[in-house]
């Protein structure tokens, strides 16, 4: 089909021959993958920071190995390695259990696991830094009130350190949004892959790459608003 006479707006329309829905789906997939891996990353990051600061030597070295290794390797390489070996490992486990072929790993879950696992290493360092920046008196005061370790973390350490971790977390969110485009190598038509698809089909490469850039910009700008709201809430009592 020849698209040279077709206008840009009809190409991105929501009609049967327009790519509007493909872009909406691509952007939505980008947001979902980013959000899910971000949440997983936060959990792994909190666990990692806890392991690094908890005083247990074994846990410390485990966490140290995790952050060193993951942060030293390019994300694209990690995704390919984790995705393909991870799913192979999953299949092998099923084989051992005698359930060969009973199920396949859902691609979305696998991709979220990969990105979240990588993100967790960076989160660990952000949380560790934030926790270490808290005045020791805060924790001592909590102890003097006889709060349990869980209560101390939930009521004192977590809300106070989140305030300090937030700029780092915002950085990580922005890079996650963009890194999520790397999962197209394992077959996901997220936003950038959708852009490549439409660019190839219409041969209007520059136009559609710029269009994708504009959507990414819109996504980061709107997420900045959310971070600003969270920052305002965490800053209560500090001005």
């Amino acid at each position: 089909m020849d698209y040279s006479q077709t206008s840009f707006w009809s190409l991105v329309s929501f009609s049967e021959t327009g790519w509007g829905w493909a872009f909406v789906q691509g952007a939505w997939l980008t947001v979902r993958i980013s959000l899910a891996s971000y949440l997983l990353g936060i959990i792994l990051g909190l666990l990692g920071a806890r392991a690094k600061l908890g005083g247990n030597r074994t846990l410390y070295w485990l966490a140290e190995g995790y952050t060193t290794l993951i942060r030293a390797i390019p994300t694209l390489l990690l995704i390919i390695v984790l995705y393909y070996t991870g799913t192979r490992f999953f299949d092998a486990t099923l084989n051992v259990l005698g359930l060969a072929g009973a199920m396949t790993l859902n691609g979305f879950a696998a991709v979220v696991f990969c990105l979240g696992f990588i993100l967790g290493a960076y989160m660990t360092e952000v949380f560790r830094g934030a926790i270490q920046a808290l005045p020791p008196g805060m924790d001592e005061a909590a102890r003097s009130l006889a709060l349990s370790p869980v209560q101390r973390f939930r009521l004192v350490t977590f809300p106070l350190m989140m305030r300090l971790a937030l700029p780092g977390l915002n950085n990580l969110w922005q890079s996650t949004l963009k890194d999520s485009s790397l999962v197209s190598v394992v077959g996901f038509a997220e936003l950038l892959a959708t852009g490549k698809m439409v660019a190839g089909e219409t041969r209007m490469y520059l136009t559609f790459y710029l269009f994708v850039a504009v959507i990414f910009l819109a996504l980061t700008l709107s997420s900045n608003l959310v971070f600003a709201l969270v920052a305002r809430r965490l800053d209560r009592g500090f001005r």
Partner: protein
Amino acid sequence: MTQKFVRILAAVAVFATGAAAAAADQLRWGYDLAPFPPWNSRSPAGEWSGFDYDIMEALCTHMQADCEIVEIAWDGMIPALQANKIDIIWTGMSITPQREEVIDFSDRYRRGPAAYIAETEMDLPISVEGFQGKSVGIKKATNFYTYFEHYYGDAATVKLYDTTDDIIADLSSGRLDVAMGDILELQRFLDSPDGDMYEMKGVTPVDPLLGKGAGAGIRQGDTALQDRLNTALKEIRDNGEYDAIAKKYFNFDPYGSD
């Protein structure tokens, strides 16, 4: 204990399972998710068409296989094949020595030739005599240049360009006698109003300098599939199905003459 573990795993499965594993005679064909019409084209609804797609359909009918398309970014094709996410790399992977170290290929199923275009009134036999004293525009760092320089480099004056568009611009303004390049790109120029005064003078034959063409990429040692593909390919080459599909899209032979 094992029972419990299996049950936990089953619970995870509810969250994490997709379809059951592929059936025995089901073939998963990897398509570059960025289409390249007219070889392959994708509608917004996700339906594929084009030369590659039609050839795949014909092959699947002959192999009596149940075929499924998996869209993957080009960079991830070979890892996906090796990790058993797909069975065949389709949509035009050129057979190169480097790739043959890690995967196997079927016989070639296409090899778009390079074309020569010039003004309609110019007499241009494709030979050393024909190119004597002619200026020929070719894209830099391509197999086309290697090929042309090897056979006709002494006769013609070769001028190198960054893009086919630049070659066409110089051809149109009379600074070049002949343009050599990708047949589809040159055909697009001939089909446009600007191309009225020009015609195709010939295409390149199959030559090692121009590469081996594109085949279906398969896992190393998957000789059963290789045999099935090659047999089916030979069948559609022999019974005219291939040519019928080719005629639908091109006015040249995409198989490349031997």
